[in-house]
């Protein structure tokens, strides 16, 4: 799995951090998403899929390998 985030689209909702805290974080100053790991291990994939699905800005794109 390869993750990309579209920072300009991010609305700083933090839903991705709630869903997958080991993969996503937020910048302190404006809450925009920080991608901690763009190729997480398999055990995290389900969380990441959930994060991408609930992102209110559709700013997380996944490429499943």
């Amino acid at each position, binding site marked *: 799995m390869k993750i990309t985030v579209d920072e300009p689209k991010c609305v700083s909702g933090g839903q991705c951090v709630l869903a997958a805290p080991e993969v996503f974080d937020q910048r302190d100053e404006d809450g925009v998403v920080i991608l901690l790991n763009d190729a997480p291990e398999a055990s995290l994939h389900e969380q990441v899929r959930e994060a991408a699905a*609930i992102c209110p800005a559709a700013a997380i794109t996944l490429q499943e390998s």
Partner: protein
Amino acid sequence: MNRVVVVGASAGGLAAAEALRRQGFDGEITLIGDERLAPYDRPPLSKQILDHRWQADQVALRSQADLDALKLDLRLGVAAVGLDQGRRSVELADGTGVPYDALVIATGVRPRRTSLAGADDAAGVHVLRTLDDALGLRARLRPGRRLVVVGAGFVGTEVAAVAHTMGVDVTVVEPVPVPLAHAVGRKVGLFLTQLHADRGVDLRTGTTVEEILTDAGEVTGVKLADATIVPADDVLLAVGSVPNTEWLAGSGLTIDDGLVCDEFSAAAPRVYGVGDVARWHNPLFGTAMRIEHRTNAAEQGMAVAYNLLHPDSPRPFAPVPYFWTDQYELKIQCYGYLRGHEECAVVEGDLDEGRFVAAYRTGDRLTAALAVGMPPKTVRSWRSVVAARTEWSAVTGVHAAR
């Protein structure tokens, strides 16, 4: 079960369809939308679309390749007009019937139309729900033009902020004395109102628009209850929304300001409601609610997909609702359920500095927390305090322990 029909091709319907596939459903999924466009996102309409930061195609929720991968029977530009539960069939406006084994209803809401004289056919009268609405309004907003926003809710105030920033002369008319007070309480309502007043938006509160004035089919202004005339080139009606449930009349489903669903988001066996249209019982708050927030549509779509595939072991849908609104440079975020709150207290930061968390009490519980200008970790931490159904008396303790 082989055929799932999802009526409504916006965020909630798409989330349900995607979650069905993600959870391994390989039967047929028909996704029906009354708009001709592939699923797109609505929050940017009053934000990035209106102020030209985005092109129209940037609101697409998924790429064509991602949509193709879902292998949907996608029926766009055709509305559902009827439901026959006995025959398990959705009737479409083009006369076709679409049979289902399970049905997801995600038909959303539409803007409430007022019965204002002159409101219906004049050029320059707008509502804002669809991409076409947003592009139509955007095409008319230019520096020096005059916009009257009827209704100071979240859509109305977001548009007012964007239009004012674009150099448009903005007047907002709102019948209640403190805009948004019914939603966020008087204190926060006054704070948000002041944001607009400080920047020179003309706020007319405690009054109503009686008539939209036109000349040769073009808007020229509005007449207020006290007979004051506010000249305008455009008028945005932002006075709330109405659930799209008319097509369910006679179906046997219960309609009461939305499609009535149980705690599993089920409206009937194998029939589920998702998003703005669904009034379901949220067991976390112990009350029925209908939530018109973007994130709820996605979360409920996912929850319904699970329950649809696991009818013998469904999970209650018990989310902490979340919404945000952008007003000028400020982002306002809220976790919880504000409706019917009895008390609001600032528990972190300072309202006068524009950095604060406001907590809301219903009964003896904290039911919502609204944050402005606070760090993301702080905002997220309040979500869990709301989710824990924390006693109100402990909220100051939470604050002290931080």
